[in-house]
């Protein structure tokens, strides 16, 4: 019986873990499909749209110093409503009508893994 319990507990744990990683995988797909056009596949701000006449430098998400100045709410805000919502360039589109809330929350977490930073708190 104890053995069965252990197996069940392990299965539940494995399932939970699988669900969590599937979500991260889904977010990575969303990032690659939409964001990397300008921010690059690794989030360094060097996507294929960034040619010499691109008017601004898309954010390099691996720059912890810059990324630490922004709270998670700031990130969500700029993804949903675009650059002008945070006094930045309109070249950053408003994705609020394209992405779901869950997509955007996933992306905020994804950006934190790219910058390896927690961002402005509170």
């Amino acid at each position, binding site marked *: 019986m104890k053995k069965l319990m252990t197996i069940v507990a392990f299965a539940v744990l494995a399932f939970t873990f699988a669900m969590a990683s599937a979500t991260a995988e889904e977010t990575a797909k969303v990032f690659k499909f939409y964001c990397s056009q300008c921010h690059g596949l690794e989030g360094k701000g060097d996507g294929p749209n960034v040619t010499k*006449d691109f008017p601004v430098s898309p954010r390099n998400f691996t720059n912890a110093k810059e990324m630490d100045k922004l709270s998670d709410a700031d990130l969500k805000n700029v993804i949903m409503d675009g650059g002008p919502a945070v006094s930045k360039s309109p070249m950053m589109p*408003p994705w609020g*009508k394209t992405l779901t809330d869950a997509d955007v929350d996933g992306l905020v977490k994804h950006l934190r893994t790219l910058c390896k930073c927690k961002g402005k708190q509170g």
Partner: protein
Amino acid sequence: MKNILTVALSVVFLASATSSSSADPAAGKTVFGAKGCADCHYTDGPAKEKTIDDQLAKKGPELWYAGSKFQKAWLAKWLTDPKPIRPQKFNSLTEENPADHPKLAGADAGSVTDYLMSLTSADVASGKVKPKNNPKGRQIFTKKMPCSGCHQYTGRKKNIVGGRSGPSLVEAGVRLNPDWILAYLQKPKVFKPVKMMPVFVGLLSDKDMTNVARYVANFKPKKK
């Protein structure tokens, strides 16, 4: 007088003969199948893509509304001499467009054009968009919204500017049906339910979208 009449009659006869012999969608459908076009382009709507994976699995753009999207003269010419429309390879952010789209010989290009032009969408209302360089459309396209971030177009100094991830809009007024540009902005879910371009419904008004469509439809070769 008799001469003029003969000439006029032959012109009418020639015109009618040309138009009736060229309109052959059924023959074009056969060529489309035989040449393997359907390996990369699907022609039976409505849109099938539901997820990002569905979109990425496609090898080329869907053509089920080609007759509402393209201009016939442009399509017939392009099929005989296909120049890249997208700077990047379809669905790729890392590879350039290899410019290897198959060419069709004149007669095949004509019949495939007739076939593709027969594939229309009831979601494109006709006669709504008159191409015009208008300041409001230009301001949205170049400043207010990030259109130029992903689409190339001809700048004021006649140089090509803009991003590379979307289809080029250089001379889009020769390629695209102006009414389709508006319909595409207004009904993204109908034409491309999963796409790299943001949805602007709810962000731009119908008037704004009409102005953008008029502006883009006015992208034509400069008169010399």
